[in-house]
């Protein structure tokens, strides 16, 4: 085992736990580059998991930008690669996972940093709110100490006492009643909604420039979800954070998004302003997804389902359009030629040549490199 393997985080471990083993030992070493502003730019990201028997291409070249202080919703169904993309950007996978492309935060190339520099950025400039609140907190340590750890590690607060006080303030900020008590609580003593808030408190402890939230409300009841979504909006306003919100829920996307990027089988099929993408969708998959969700107006039994099922991660057909096997508009060309994202409206891109043969309203700079073709 090389040293690199030891330092690297195993996959699927939360940001909170990630920082457990090392106190701030890097103090004398060359300071990590600090992002100058909060734009997160991802270009041509591809993620491949390899085992002895096969390689799974979970993400196959996606590009998106989270503007400083804005919200980008990464929308997709299970296996679409949305969570993998978010985690790959934060470099939460080990060396065994092949990641290509570029991710820059305020001009700092995240994939170019050595692990130690990445560790000092992670949590300070870009932080993760994982989905599973119960599995992401250390069950054996009090909530307060788990928050304080982040603060001390990033040298926001030095003293134990000051860090604890700040932890209580953070818990109050995320709307936990009686924060003084919550600081002393163990995770199991809090409800699901409160644990999710505690994770948010950990994530915002250093006032990061970008928050990556991976299905942060999926495990919560709807009334609690409403509280947490409201909290995100509030925090964003107060701290000016950018938010990369990963979700499968169209309603959550509608409520939160400045921009929406829709993923299918490891690729983006549509990207644009939230209201446009989830209102006048330009891709048959997005449109199909919207019609599949019942509204009070849908006549019973007449939901317009998308035939077939989404492919498992890495199992999609990759000649032509991955959605073609389920698409009602598909023509022969869809099965042979892979469609690129092309502009279909004001800062709105879609990867379907069949549906929008219309002239682009405005030709901006395309979000993927592939479009040069």
């Amino acid at each position, binding site marked *: 085992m090389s040293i690199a393997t030891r330092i690297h985080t195993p996959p699927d471990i939360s940001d909170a736990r990630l920082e457990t083993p090392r106190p701030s030992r890097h103090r004398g070493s060359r300071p990590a580059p600090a992002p100058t502003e909060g734009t997160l730019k991802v270009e041509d990201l591809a993620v491949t998991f390899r085992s002895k028997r096969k390689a799974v291409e979970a993400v196959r070249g996606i590009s998106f930008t989270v503007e400083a202080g804005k919200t980008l919703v990464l929308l997709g169904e299970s296996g679409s690669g949305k969570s993998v993309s978010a985690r790959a950007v934060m470099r939460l996978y080990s060396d065994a996972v092949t990641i290509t492309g570029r991710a820059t935060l305020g001009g700092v190339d995240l994939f170019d940093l050595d692990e130690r520099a990445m560790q000092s950025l992670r949590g300070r400039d870009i932080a993760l709110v994982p989905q599973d609140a119960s599995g992401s907190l250390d069950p054996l340590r009090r909530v307060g100490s788990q928050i304080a750890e982040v603060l001390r590690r990033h040298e926001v607060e030095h003293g134990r006492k000051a860090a604890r006080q700040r932890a209580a303030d953070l818990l109050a900020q995320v709307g936990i009643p009686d924060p003084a008590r919550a600081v002393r609580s163990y995770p199991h003593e809090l409800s699901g909604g409160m644990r999710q808030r505690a994770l948010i408190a950990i994530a915002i402890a250093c006032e990061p420039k970008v928050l990556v939230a991976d299905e942060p409300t999926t495990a919560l009841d709807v009334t609690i979800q409403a509280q947490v979504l409201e909290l995100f909006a509030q925090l964003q306003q107060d701290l000016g954070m950018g938010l990369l919100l990963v979700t499968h829920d169209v309603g959550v996307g509608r409520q939160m998004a400045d921009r929406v990027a829709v993923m299918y089988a490891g690729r983006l099929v549509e990207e644009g302003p939230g209201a446009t993408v989830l209102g006048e969708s330009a891709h048959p998959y997005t449109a199909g997804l919207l019609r599949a969700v019942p509204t009070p107006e849908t006549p019973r039994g007449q939901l*317009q389902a998308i035939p077939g099922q989404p492919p498992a991660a890495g199992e999609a057909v990759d000649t032509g359009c991955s959605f073609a096997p389920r698409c009602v508009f598909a023509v022969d060309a869809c099965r042979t030629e892979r469609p690129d994202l092309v502009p279909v409206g004001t800062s709105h891109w879609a990867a379907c040549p069949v549906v929008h043969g219309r002239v682009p309203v405005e030709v901006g700079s395309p979000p993927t490199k592939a479009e040069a073709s």
Partner: protein
Amino acid sequence: MTTPILLAEHLSKRFDNGVLAVDDVSLTVHPGETVGIVGESGCGKSTTGKLILRLLETDSGYVAFEGKNIGTMSGQRLQEVRKQLQLVPQNPQTSLNPRLTITEAIAFNLRAHRWPKRDIGPRTASLLDRVGVPSAYAHRYPHELSGGQLQRVAIARALSTDPKLIVCDEAVSALDKSVQAQVLNLLVELQRDLGIAYLFISHDLGVVEHLSDRVVVMYLGRIVEESAAGELWQRPAHPYTEALFSSVPGPGRQRLVLTGDLPSPAHPPSGCGFRTRCPMAIGACAEARPEAVAIAGDISHQAACIRIGEGVTAATRIGAA
């Protein structure tokens, strides 16, 4: 009015750990109709389903299926009722035996109900066809099928004994939306063709409203509101229903965001269970358990809130505050 196929009266269930999961719940299902039970986790909706199926014994009250109390039945008679009263559980990955092919899983149910042996093979095949599982999958094991296909198999298994009522406990909650819509359409189609009644338990308000003729809203073990579907979106009467529906994410809606969490069902508040989170709560709410009252003289729409007569909704109140 037709005789109800299912009549549950005053069901209560307290678990050994002191949790009062279901507290005086009564509901009726008529032949061929869909009744939805909606509520958040811990509200007792699944426990209610289990009491109705007699997978759990009720502490008080009774369940009558086609006019006969199933709580006192045993042996052959109970078995006969169970044929008529089937379940589609939430997670087919865990509810289908991983070591049986899907054909064997359905045949197992038929054998358990002593179906004539020579009918089992053809019947299984036609059931799979009926729910849209390709015959090529018939001899595959559950792990070889997708979630949507497995849920179709679970539906085929429930259908196998020609039931009159199927309890669907979060039957589509684990599915991706694009697949969920297919399964919902299938359930509606089966109901139309076979006249099955559903008791549809889900936390997903949109799905419940879409599928149901009537909807029951539960909170902390009790029914807080009951009405025809559609009414709840437009005219929620109970402040909890109002908050629940306004919490459904989406843009630009007036939202009534509740404060706090569900109280522990082991120590529910006195009086109205919702009063600790209710923006309309007054002193009297702590005193007595509110009775269900008809809304605007319509007995098909009832809610259990003492402030209903006052004509204020939580939203208008918040607006005024």
